[in-house]
């Protein structure tokens, strides 16, 4: 839409700030060496199987079940993290209460805690003889560790800070003027939240959802301890990759890796489009 408009604009800007060549060179070299060339290997390796072999290797029931589980659990975890992350961000930005600074710092904890440590700790907590698992089992008969529910909890832990930290700055920027204006115009509090606050937060929420999902879908270290790892039931796709590697099936392992990458990309692309539509509708 804006191509014809952008061109002269770009031409004016192109030479405005010097030093582009060197910086771009560094960025491109760095990107190629660390990310692009390695991913090229992932892209090419599966085709050793041939197209038919590749398709067969990806449509095995166990692979399909693992992919379904990984993407389902990651989407569910990101969806659960959405209200929780919003809650945390809202409390940290809008409210003043004892322990607020501590809560603010704690949000980043999943970034800092090594994933394997988080996995062991969560398993210890949620297993039927753990601090949390024991009462849940006794009161409700719930089993969380070693079931898909345990996977969702671990992924929730991993995804939560992404959503809280993406929403937080937007919420801070938003200020209260718009809300106050809405109130002056006679809107109820609920109407204000729904018509003013939520639309303003929606793009950030979507971004956070995307980041949290992307991080969760490939998570390995924290899930492997708590999952139970039953084929067809609680076996995640990254585990299946390592299993194939251990059977010396490099191409098969890379095939699952490639499939995960493409599926994750499709989800992120869909989110991106949704976000663009949201922005347009809002503007």
């Amino acid at each position, binding site marked *: 839409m804006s191509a014809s408009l952008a061109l002269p604009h770009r031409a004016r800007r192109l030479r405005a700030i010097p030093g582009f060549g060197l910086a771009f060179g560094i960025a491109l070299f760095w990107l190629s060496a660390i990310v692009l060339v390695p991913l090229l290997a992932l892209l090419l390796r599966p085709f050793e199987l041939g197209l038919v072999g590749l398709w067969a290797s990806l449509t095995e029931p166990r692979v399909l079940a693992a992919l379904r589980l990984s993407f389902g659990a990651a989407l569910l975890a990101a969806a659960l993290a959405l209200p929780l992350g919003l809650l945390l961000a809202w409390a940290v930005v809008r409210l003043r209460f004892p322990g607020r600074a501590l809560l603010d710092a704690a949000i980043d904890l999943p970034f800092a805690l090594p994933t394997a440590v988080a996995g062991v700790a969560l398993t210890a907590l949620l297993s039927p003889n753990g601090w949390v698992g024991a009462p849940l089992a006794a009161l409700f008969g719930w089993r969380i560790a070693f079931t898909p529910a345990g996977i969702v909890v671990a992924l929730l832990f991993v995804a939560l800070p992404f959503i809280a930290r993406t929403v937080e700055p937007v919420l801070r920027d938003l200020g209260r003027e718009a809300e106050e204006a809405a109130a002056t115009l006679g809107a109820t509090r609920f109407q204000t939240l729904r018509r003013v606050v939520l639309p303003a937060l929606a793009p950030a929420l979507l971004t956070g959802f995307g980041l949290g999902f992307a991080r969760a879908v490939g998570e390995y270290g924290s899930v492997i301890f708590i999952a139970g790892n039953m084929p067809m039931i609680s076996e995640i796709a990254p*585990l299946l990759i390592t299993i194939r590697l*251990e059977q010396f099936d490099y191409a098969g392992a890379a095939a699952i890796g490639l499939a995960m990458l493409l599926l994750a990309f499709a989800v992120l692309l869909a989110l991106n489009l949704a976000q663009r539509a949201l922005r347009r509708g809002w503007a």
Partner: protein
Amino acid sequence: MRPSIPAGRRAFLAAPALLALPARAQGVRELLNVSYDPTRELFRDYSAHFVREWQAQHRQTVRVNNSHGGSGRQARSVIDGLAADVVTLALAYDVDAIAERGLIAKDWITRLPQNSAPYTSTIVFLIRKGNPKGLRDWPDLVKPGVAIITPNPKTSGGARWNYLAAWASAKKHGQDPEEFLGRLFRQVPVLDTGARGSTTSFVQRGQGDVLLAWENEAHLALKEFGAGQLEIVYPPLSILAEPSVAVVDANAERRGTRDLAEAYLRGLYAPAGQEVAVKHFYRPRDEALLAKHAQRFPPLELVTIDGAFGGWAEAQRTHFSDGGVFDRIYRPGR
């Protein structure tokens, strides 16, 4: 581009780099033993013994490095270039896989006595004290309400022995082995990737009624976690597990460690090496020593992989490869 990092941070970066310079003395020869999970304690002891012995005989200081992990994963690491001088893995199949890539001579299994397995083990049941579910033999495992803990045969060497022992028993009892294994694995609530993970699930997390484990692993768990809670049950029939050892020829040649590597493996067959094996609950090859410890290693009927399954290549293809019998167990609709 350094100035993008503040000076203080640069000093901080430099400090650990200096600390990390390897404190490797001149003239120390190194040997890397790549092994599987349950042998950590065994090889920590044995390596110390070997270093002393070599020092006394050759006036050379040797440093033995150990790497442990799931047997299959370790084999893959060697195939991908981990510079192991010797491998001591859970099963011959994993050594064969390395040999197939040309890193070990194809006839490795005949180069050392007794199938290149200096000690053996078998599969036993580790159960809760008092045997509340009355588990004595393989058929008891599939009684309703019994939860079984075993690692995944796809990723764990020990689990493959578990699986094959169960198969052999079902055949002996005249049951359909595939049907029996299907029932058994449907009663497994947690399928860890390695033997150690399963032991933790069983003992620490309190999962399941019985752990199918290496004999040595069961004894070690008993020792570590107290005999007050756990008991070992020897089923009437099990499998003779022969963990294989081999010199990785390509690496030993390249690194000039062949003499060390061969001495390291041969020493496992010597009396002192056999004693270390006994100490860590592996069955020694030395008949007299085995008889002396009959209390610790009660005799039981043992089938062999060659006798009952036609060798590892055959067993692997039939049972554990993609689309094999094990995969069929988890096919939906059964």
